[in-house]
């Protein structure tokens, strides 16, 4: 099957600045794909390259097998949900949703019907006559979604669509988006700097840094088997053990990643460490530890006996939980 989106050695340079610097990428049809990275890592630029708001300075972007070199945004089979939603302030909600159909030359009655159906799909029935300014942030987000989906795109691009919402709404929308994607079977490409969002929603995640993809894989790969210190560090709050520590402890030869929740207090064996701080988090307690001169954290579930601050403890972990990375990465 042809890939929904394919990047071949894609570059986007602005003078000296290399926003995207040689990205190879293949997103399968029907996949929920997340682009994850800090701001300025090139993930948003990649999304804009797919949408056609930017043109690559090198390499090639293909959508559904067709090279997009000379295809402007208005002829690409993709649609975008913008970070600020970009709802047209002079149009009411229904006309916003029907905008693309109006441009495509569809008649008034069918496009209104299509718009109303799309609004129903995003759980906003009867909101058609309102102005975008009369809606809440979450509602605007749904309108933006309906406006893009009504065009039946092959690929839906979402640029940090949940960033402006509060935590509760964000979590609810995550689930809804995921369900919607399953139901419609459309390829979703989702840009976010929130690793929790990327891991919980996506089938596959690409981690961006400095204009390159550092690692692409399933959420489990990214979370448990980071291939580079940057990934381990950026995705959650993994403990990064530098090569000298792993070597000293006889664990291996390169840097290693260890999730805080994988660390356990043991009565014998393991490694000696000192508790330098405690923070109560509700379901667990976070311990700050000094392991052989190296700072690390552990999450100890509720119920266990908590050591006091300043006390010496022994810590251990299952061998599988310690992930050794390649030296070069």
């Amino acid at each position, binding site marked *: 099957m042809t890939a929904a989106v394919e990047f071949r050695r894609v570059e986007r340079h602005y003078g000296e600045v290399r926003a995207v610097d040689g990205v190879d990428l293949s997103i399968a049809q029907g996949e929920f794909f997340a682009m994850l990275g800090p701001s300025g890592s090139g993930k948003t630029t990649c999304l804009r390259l797919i949408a056609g708001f930017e043109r690559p300075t090198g390499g090639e972007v293909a959508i559904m097998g067709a090279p997009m070199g000379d295809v*402007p945004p208005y002829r690409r089979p993709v649609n975008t949900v*913008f970070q600020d939603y970009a*709802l*047209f302030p*002079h149009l009411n909600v229904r006309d916003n949703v029907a*905008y693309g159909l109006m441009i495509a030359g569809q008649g008034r009655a069918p496009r209104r019907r299509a718009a109303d159906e799309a609004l129903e799909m995003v759980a906003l029935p009867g909101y058609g006559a309102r102005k975008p300014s009369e809606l809440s942030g979450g509602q605007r987000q749904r309108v933006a979604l309906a*406006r893009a989906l009504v065009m039946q795109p092959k690929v839906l691009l979402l640029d940090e669509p949940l960033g402006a919402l509060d935590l509760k709404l964000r979590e609810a929308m995550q689930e809804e988006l995921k369900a919607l994607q399953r139901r419609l079977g459309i390829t979703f490409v989702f840009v976010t700097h929130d690793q929790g969002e990327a891991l919980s929603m996506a089938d596959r995640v690409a981690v961006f840094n400095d204009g390159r993809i550092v690692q692409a894989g399933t959420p489990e790969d990214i979370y448990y088997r980071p291939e580079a210190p940057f990934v381990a560090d950026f995705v959650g709050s993994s403990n990064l053990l530098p090569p000298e520590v792993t070597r000293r402890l006889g664990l291996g030869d390169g840097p290693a990643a260890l999730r805080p929740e994988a660390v356990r207090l043991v009565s014998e064996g393991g490694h000696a460490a000192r508790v330098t701080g405690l923070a109560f988090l509700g379901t667990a307690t976070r311990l700050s530890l000094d392991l052989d001169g190296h700072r690390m954290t552990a999450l100890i579930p509720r119920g266990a006996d908590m050591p006091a601050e300043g006390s010496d403890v022994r810590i251990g972990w299952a061998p599988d939980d310690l992930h050794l990375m390649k030296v070069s990465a």
Partner: protein
Amino acid sequence: MRSDRAPLGLKVAAIAGLLFLHLPILLIFVYAFTTEDRSYQWPPPGLTTQWFAVTWNRPDVWEALSLSVRVASISTVIALILGTLAAAAVSRTRFFGRETISLLVILPIALPGIITGISLRSAFNLADIPFSFWTIVLGHATFCVVVVYNNAVARFRRTSGSLVEASMDLGATGFQTFRHVILPNIATALLAGGMLAFALSFDEVIVTTFTAGQQQTLPIWMLEELVRPRQRPVTNVVAMVVVLVTFLPILAAYYLTRGTDTVAGSGK
């Protein structure tokens, strides 16, 4: 935190300042009705409306008014086109010469009008261009660009750039995007800018004296009357009408941009 009261001195000074700005204009209204026709005597010895009829029947006033309206209309159209284009270019990207463009647009009103005037006159002189309707328009459009530009730039800045991208994303070409998204969003700003440009051109006298030759716009007509008064009551009536005519577009421009431009500076 604006519930606190202003010091009395400040309040008095502020209101006195506003009165200083407005009383002289109100005075014009009284003079338009005076029966005295030889001097500027105050208080008026009597009141009459006869000068309105006299003014109505003066062909020179009508001719000057007609020329002013035509010049202002054409200049406004040119200023609308040029000002919008410049604002669109400046707000679209951060290209190299943006500061220069802004400076170039503002220069014609930042420099004294007499410089614009005599510059144009020297240029017409060197290029052997005879004075005409179009030499007046040339000057007026040049300094009217800035008001349209300022209004349009402010609106473009508030109109998020992603609207254009959203439109193209939904299948609209550049021209469709202009028609369906950009134009409706900047329309009121353009209307406001256009009205102010019209008012500016309608009033202008300094540049016009250098570019009009023998033609008389309404302000030139008034200037002649001020320097060599012929029939003072007619001047009074014309002055009052000019005040009323320019107030309308200004009020309209205010209501068109209200809630967007004025609120922006009011803080919270």
